[in-house]
């Protein structure tokens, strides 16, 4: 048995404690439904357990491996959902985001949650809400140059957080 294989129930419990939060977060993000997300996480650990001997820590981290499994589970659940009968009388099917975009989106959102409040605030106000630096500076009671500098350090912090999460683009 290779060391680090996910072959004992205790290994699965430890893997769950370490990674279930993130896996669930991504599952909710990509499936848009907490019930389906729970199903996806459960199925991910079950598949990981069945394939436990195939996990090789020399090749990649356990986290990366679990995310790869979850990605397949989400695709399968998405297919199952797509094959259900369409809603009658013109009901609108929810738009489904391509999965890789959903993963990137989740990574950016998770990285945003990890950076400092000051940095997140200026990025949200200036970029996502498109507000002028002068207005944001006044609201925060700081010089405009400080807003500009926070935007810069905010982007750098975001880059570090993305690397931590595993974004390798």
């Amino acid at each position: 048995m290779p060391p680090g294989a996910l072959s004992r129930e205790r290994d699965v419990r430890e893997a769950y404690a370490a990674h279930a939060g993130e896996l669930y977060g991504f599952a909710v993000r990509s499936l848009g439904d907490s019930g389906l997300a729970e199903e996806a996480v459960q199925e991910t650990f079950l598949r990981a357990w069945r394939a436990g001997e195939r996990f090789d820590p020399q090749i990649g981290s356990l986290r990366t491996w679990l995310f790869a499994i979850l990605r397949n589970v989400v695709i399968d659940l998405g297919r199952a959902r797509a094959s259900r009968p369409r809603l009658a009388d013109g009901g609108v099917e929810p738009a489904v985001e391509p999965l890789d975009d959903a993963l990137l989106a989740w990574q950016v959102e998770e990285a945003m949650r990890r950076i400092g409040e000051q940095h997140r605030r200026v990025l949200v106000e200036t970029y996502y809400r498109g507000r002028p630096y002068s207005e944001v500076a006044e609201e925060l009671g700081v010089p405009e140059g400080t807003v500009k500098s926070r935007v810069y350090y905010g982007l750098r912090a975001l880059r570090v957080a993305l690397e931590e999460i595993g974004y390798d683009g």
Partner: protein
Amino acid sequence: MTAERCREWRESLGAHALGQLPAEERAALEAHLEGCADCRAELESLAGVARLMPLADPERFGTAPTPPPALADRVAATISAERRTERRRRVRFGLALGGATAAVAVAVLALFILPGGGGDTPEQHVSFNSLPPGMEIGAVLEPHAFGTEIHVYVKGARSGSLCRVFLRDPSGNRLPAGSFRYRWGDDSQAILSSALDLSRTAAIGIRVGDRTFTAPVNPPDA
């Protein structure tokens, strides 16, 4: 020093990457970038992050959703159930194979499912031959620090039959390993244990009603 000279420019790189710099400042910064490879590299790196930002939904920057506490228990229960099914399947698998094939299967399976703490002896799948028509018996013996764990699978006996299991050591001594009652339609697998080490187990026997069936363990050619 480069870092000192660039400091002022550096802090504009974020705004530039996000396309927020007024035209005049942008022109001045671009003139600096022409001659500064470090700042160009930094801008390129930040632009990579900036390109991802439109994908994100700022409404989701608050608290991350957390899995309900009960999910951990459900996952643990699913895995436990899977583990039990897997054991049962393995016993049946051993049963379905003939002696020689089983020896190969034991060697292959042992690579994957050798339980811890039992020395060097691999798990043994045992097939009982010469059974009455319609009857099946299979067993898997696992080595443990305490001795041997025995999974026995019976099918086709008369419902209510008392099944007594024993192991035999190399001297031919018979060591009782427990008993169970076979019920038709019930889970026909029993898990028993014996203090006899698997490496010292020569045979396993089971007495079903008034008939006794035995099968060799650790055959010399395995």
